[in-house]
């Protein structure tokens, strides 16, 4: 019974002597192999070469600063409550007089930690953030020998200062525009 239109009748005739030498089939197979020598290589030499990510790629988290270099994060806890992996923890502190150039709002995150072992890079923290303080950049979390190295603290996450180190800031910002 024919199940599909594409089914072929299998030829079950015994091979002739010439066919049993496989000469023609070997030549055919080699031709396919050789043709790939002249085609574009689909692989790249990572890590010397890297691919460009799509604009919506979700990689390592960055804690953003505004144009004056003040931290955007107010430790509102919405990223932590949105996080399905419960990877984010934080502790807030009150901004003191004289710290206005460091933090944008009267409350700021004194401690901010992301457990990259738990993080699933879903980007819900970025979506939940009302202050554009956290976003997922276009780099990945580098490999590490110990588990300890995957607990990212505020110093690891904070974007470079836009006025003191504009080059590193632009690099960390990636393709995303500053929205504040």
């Amino acid at each position: 019974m024919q199940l599909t239109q594409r089914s072929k009748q299998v030829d079950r005739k015994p091979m002739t002597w010439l066919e049993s030498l496989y000469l023609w089939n070997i030549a055919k197979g080699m031709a396919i192999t050789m043709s790939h020598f002249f085609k574009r290589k689909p692989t790249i030499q990572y890590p010397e070469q890297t691919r460009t990510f799509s604009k919506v790629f979700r990689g390592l988290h960055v804690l953003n600063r505004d144009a004056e270099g003040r931290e955007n994060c107010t430790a509102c806890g919405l990223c932590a409550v949105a996080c399905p992996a419960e990877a984010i923890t934080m502790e807030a502190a009150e901004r003191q007089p004289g710290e206005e150039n460091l933090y944008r709002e009267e409350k700021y995150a004194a401690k901010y930690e992301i457990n990259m072992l738990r993080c699933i890079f879903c980007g819900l923290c970025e979506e939940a953030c009302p202050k554009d303080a956290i976003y997922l950049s276009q780099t990945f979390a580098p490999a590490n020998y110990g588990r300890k190295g995957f607990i990212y603290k505020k110093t690891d996450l904070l974007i470079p200062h836009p006025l003191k180190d504009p080059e590193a800031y632009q690099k960390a910002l990636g393709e995303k525009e500053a929205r504040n």
Partner: protein
Amino acid sequence: MADEIKQEAPKNFKVTIDNITIEVTPGTSILNAARQIGGDVTPPAMCYYSSLKGSGGKCRSCLVEVSAGSAADPRPMPKLVASCRTNVMDGMVIKNMTSDRVKDARAGVVEFLLLNHPLDCPVCDQAGECHLQDLGYEHGKEGTRYEFKRRTFEKEDIGPYIQLHMNRCILCYRCTFVADQITNQRVHGVLDRGDHSEISTYISKAIDNDFSGNMIDVCPVGALTDKTFRFKNRVWFTKPVDAHRDCDKCCGKVTLWNRGDDVLRVTSRKNEWGEVQQFDGKPGWICNECRFDKKHINDWTIEGPTQISRHSVISQGHYLGLQKPKETVAEVMGGRSPKLLMDIHDISDVNTVDLSALPGPATGANFEKKEQQ
């Protein structure tokens, strides 16, 4: 007419709210009648507070439509009425959720309340239990159309326990009623008129009454917040438990807001309308000693977790009926505990500072000190 007046008033008034009929005693306000039915039928109340005499009639968020005034005079009332200040009549028919006029008017009221209210919920400690936040989201007014400069005030210190954010105030007057009716003397009030009016203590006199902390509980927004809880945690990450202690000043029945075993905040117990619960017919106000000074778990007798509506963000912690799983590894391994590849508590910087021991908000210095140790 004279005969009619002589007739005895019917024992109970029959009123219909959103097609639900209920019998209430004469003299009940529409809002309280609706609260007896409960659920979505109840209009929101930002300024009315059942335990405070004279409150209500200021915020206009409880507006309802009266489609039939009474059985004797079934004409509809021409304008929407404030349900907290309007008493029911026999045969009154009221529309709350079923009236488009009410919904429209209420959305407008919310927008007016939010005109000068800063949208700083990420910073505000009231977020998550804020009635104005709920009201705004219920009416789809979480954004703002207001393009002008908001009314701002100079920051004012009104004592070591209470933080006043005048910018957030919606002038509901609840806190002044608390000071008038519960504490011995009122040292704060509403100054100036109209757009300039503000809650203030005259000549910045500190509020040191024993029951002044209840102003925090009655404030529907984040204008009056607990300084001992300020910025310590978000409300929805804390675990509310009912507790009590023997207090000679107040009823001693409170809700503790815990993080682990740390008592971060103490408030009076709230009922489903966000108002302080009644105990033996009296509102369960708590004194400042219970609220601000007893921040240790051993000061209290724990009764059990507080029932929180599952629609509230506070219930996201799923602390109700929580049972710790039995540790079986040690049993199987003959008493040896499992070897951890990484103990998060050794590495994490969070939870190193005992926030409940701090008298006020944590500052950068608190955390730096810890790091140096």
